[in-house]
């Protein structure tokens, strides 16, 4: 019977010298899922993806892709997966078309034969098919790389930080393409340092320093946020941070766009102080410190809030 798991990872460990890139990572990815590995640089995202893409061997632990063990069956896996490394890794001195044709022939197919697979992604590039890949803009390079990774109709795609350093518009377009691929039944495993991209995934793994903080659907992760979250703003943001950091009941305060995100120590305790009372008290405190135009509202946390909450739990981070 065919397994419904596209990827299983069990207690993976990988060290580079004294540096521990993966400290025992376990997760499962279902077939047809759009799965995000989310975390900052140095979290171990690239190492994990490379192990799954059969390009690195773990020091310990098990990893299976499409039901096959990554070490022994690397050739079979390579036939059925698509891979896009973090850096733009196509031939810059070949044209768009030459790159595509080369990758088509590597997988013993042709561009004509599999054109339908990459049509959506490739079409905006087609007017530039005779341009050297090195002369493309960042967004177009990403599209070309994805086209090349898709040309052989892989069952699973590994994408290592495809949107890093790419502007928000190109990022949106790229994610739209991933969602379309998913709709065709392709399993997509994508890593990113941008927390806001988590919401576009079916499930995500939050990773930090070689460890998984949490694996779940974005909604479930958010629902487990340990505390009530408030968004606060006033006219002087810098002073607002300083004052809130000095406030005795503050659990955490982080800048978040035009607002600050604030959690209260009292909200952690079992008998939660009523929201209204907290808000009023805060308002009063800030008013006393001379803030004007104070807005305080209770909000839903984002994945980034959750990530920071997990980080604080792990490390007892203190804001400077």
């Amino acid at each position: 019977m065919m397994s419904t798991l596209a990827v299983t990872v069990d207690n993976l460990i990988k060290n580079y010298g004294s540096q521990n890139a993966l400290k025992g990572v376990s997760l499962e990815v279902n077939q047809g899922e759009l799965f995000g590995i989310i975390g900052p640089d140095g979290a171990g995202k690239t190492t994990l993806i490379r192990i799954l893409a059969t390009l690195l061997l773990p020091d310990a632990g098990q990893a299976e892709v499409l039901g096959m063990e990554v070490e022994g069956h690397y050739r079979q896996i390579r036939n059925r997966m698509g891979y896009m490394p973090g850096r733009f890794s196509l031939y810059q001195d070949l044209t768009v078309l030459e790159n595509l044709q080369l990758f088509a022939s590597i997988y013993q197919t042709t561009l004509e034969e599999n054109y339908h697979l990459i049509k959506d992604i490739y079409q905006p590039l087609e007017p530039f098919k005779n341009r050297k890949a090195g002369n493309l803009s960042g967004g177009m390079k990403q599209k070309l790389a994805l086209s090349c990774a898709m040309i052989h109709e892989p069952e699973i795609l590994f994408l290592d930080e495809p949107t890093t350093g790419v502007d928000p518009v190109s990022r949106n377009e790229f994610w739209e393409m991933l969602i379309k691929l998913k709709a065709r039944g392709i399993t997509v495993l994508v890593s990113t340092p941008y927390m806001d991209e988590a919401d576009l995934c079916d499930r995500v793994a939050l990773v930090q320093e070689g460890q998984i903080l949490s694996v779940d659907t974005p909604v479930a992760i958010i629902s487990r946020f340990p505390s009530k979250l408030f968004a606060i703003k006033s006219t002087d943001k810098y002073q607002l941070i300083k004052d809130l950091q000095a406030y005795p009941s503050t659990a955490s305060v982080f800048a978040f766009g035009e607002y600050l995100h604030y959690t209260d120590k009292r909200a952690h305790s079992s008998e939660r102080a009523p929201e209204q009372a907290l808000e009023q008290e805060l308002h009063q405190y800030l008013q006393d410190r001379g803030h004007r135009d104070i807005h305080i509202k209770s909000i839903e946390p984002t994945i980034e809030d959750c990530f920071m909450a997990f980080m604080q739990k792990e490390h007892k981070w203190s804001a400077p």
Partner: protein
Amino acid sequence: MERPIIYAKNLTKRFGNFTAVDAISFEVGKGEIFGFLGANGAGKTTAIKMLIGLWKPTEGQAMVAGYDVYKQPEEIKRNIGYMSQRFSLYEDLTVQENIRFYAGIYGLSNQSIREKTDELIVKLGLEQVQNERIASLPLGWKQKLAFSVAIIHDPKIVFLDEPTGGVDPITRRQFWDLIYEASHKGITVFVTTHYMDEAEYCDRVSMMVDGRIEALDKPGALKVHYGVESMHDVFVKLARPEVE
């Protein structure tokens, strides 16, 4: 508004037939945090290179820290700090050696190099690792240190080119605390970023599209003007999909 610390008027850079920067005009005040946004290839890097005296403009005027970009690039370099995501610190030198090296480049006296080094190490909490090589530090620490080193000579302006790319969310915010602090000390901060929430932290932001500045205002005013909720939406509205 007092005399602008950065002043650009119709600043233009052409490469052959291609106009990378197309007659941009703007002013940045002392101590302001100025967000310089735009899609990849919109011309941000070219504009910055002209402002920091690395490339001569094709046309237009620009004064940076009171110096002319055409005639006084050396004076400009002495009065600014620069930090990019790619190059900042020497990986094979220790924390201390890096700080001393950069302080030395800007001609600080031995006495003040010693003081500044100790001060910085304490401020960033790097006492434990001051004799470790930079390569062994986490990215977030490196970036915070790189920023501090970029303003070690108390420049009038600091240019930051995507300083927080890939940095974890908490360190990213600590980084912005440093930016605020510098700004309060009167250092002008000129920053590019792909994190749209960071655009909200700026006093004013400009949006570059295809070599021109399409919008320039306070984040709040831009959101009102375009009738959207966030800077992300402002960006998406302005930066049309790549036109080539």
